């Protein structure tokens, strides 16, 4: 494609195509978007973040997709979100208002080594690609590698398991880069980490059953967001804290971000309910992205209307 208008949003793409898309989008909209490289993956790939900004010193909203490599629907949705933001800024009053007050940071391929590996060697790969000393098994679960509840029973200490937590918190450069970014930014108000599948919207905690101090507000906001999501294609979501809705999970992203003071910390599980799993057909990319966007907007608008 010569422009992002020609880009095929209804298909899955390789990493190089996604990187080209990002560069093209930035070039077309350099008054609104810039690309930040927050670090490098283990295999030396840039960790690219799109920054949508209309002014200086704004609080921020973070969205990441693709942290689990095989969850292809999430970067596919992230690409669509990026174009949607460009299309709607200046046209949609709510999004315009959000962007006039907040920056949006979007990391479309959070685990690029893993994503590349799913395109070349193993479509069902989930983890990072860093070798584990003393083991023939490669990689760490990037959603067990955060420094809140790290190493607890809701993660595995076996490098051969899909939920291996890694040798230490932030051992994975893909995670360390986000941690450093969050700390250096210091003013993120919302953190949305997008996974698939099973149709859930989850908030902290995963590592303990003690309710988060903002549980009532987070729960009500999740209800509104999932209702809005369902309004488009009748996709039903469940919602709640991670530990009560699915299972104990230790060292997960949003527990760490919440304990850093980012109140609106959520993780999504996008479609589907059990026909395709991680191999969701490409013809469902657009409906998934469209419905998810509605929920994202509810959370972002709530953030704007409820400063803290």
């Amino acid at each position, binding site marked *: 494609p010569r422009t992002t208008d020609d880009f*095929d949003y209804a*298909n*899955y*793409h390789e990493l190089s195509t996604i990187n080209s898309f990002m560069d093209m989008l930035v070039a077309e909209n350099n008054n609104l978007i810039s690309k930040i490289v927050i670090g490098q993956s283990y295999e030396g790939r840039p960790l690219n973040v799109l920054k949508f900004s209309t002014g200086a010193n704004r609080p921020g909203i973070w969205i990441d997709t693709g942290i689990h490599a095989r969850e292809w629907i999430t970067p596919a949705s992230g690409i669509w979100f990026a174009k949607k933001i460009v299309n709607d800024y200046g046209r949609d009053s709510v999004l315009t208002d959000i962007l006039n007050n907040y920056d949006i940071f979007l990391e479309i391929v959070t685990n690029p080594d893993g994503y590349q590996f799913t395109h*070349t*060697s*193993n*479509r*069902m790969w989930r983890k990072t690609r860093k070798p584990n000393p003393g083991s023939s098994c490669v990689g760490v679960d990037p959603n067990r590698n955060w420094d809140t509840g790290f190493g607890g029973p809701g993660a595995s200490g076996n490098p*051969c398991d*899909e939920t291996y937590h890694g040798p230490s918190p932030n051992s994975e450069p893909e995670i360390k880069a986000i941690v450093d970014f969050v700390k250096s930014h210091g003013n993120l108000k919302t953190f949305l980490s997008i996974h698939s599948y*099973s149709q859930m919207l989850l908030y902290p905690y995963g590592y303990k059953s003690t309710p988060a101090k903002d549980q009532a507000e987070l729960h009500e906001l999740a209800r509104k967001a999932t209702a809005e999501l369902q309004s488009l294609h009748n996709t039903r979501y469940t919602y709640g804290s991670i530990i009560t809705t*699915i*299972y104990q999970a230790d060292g997960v992203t949003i527990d760490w971000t919440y304990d850093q003071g980012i109140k609106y910390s959520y993780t999504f599980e996008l479609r589907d309910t*059990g*026909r*395709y*799993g*991680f*191999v969701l*057909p*490409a013809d469902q990319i657009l409906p998934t992205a469209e419905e998810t966007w509605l929920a994202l907007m509810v959370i972002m608008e709530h953030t704007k209307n409820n400063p803290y």
Partner: protein
Amino acid sequence: KTTFEGHQVLRITAQDAAQINLLKELSEQQHLGLDLWMEPVHESLPVDVRVPFNSLQAVRSFLGYNHIQYRVMIEDVQDLLDEEQRHMLKSHVI
């Protein structure tokens, strides 16, 4: 290149906590090479597991012997991946 010929994804529906515990024991059998897409945690949630072809008989026997309900969610993972690949190639051509 890893292939998934003959791998199936089973959606298992446990009826009670005892069956959940049985599924947890099953998932810890490293030699079966199971890939838990949704882990056994509570009877209200399904368990999705990718089972390599070589382990299918053992897993299905285990489920049958313990009266644990399941259905085949994906008949052959490789077929689905090939289909995905075809779509992507077609898209590249376009």
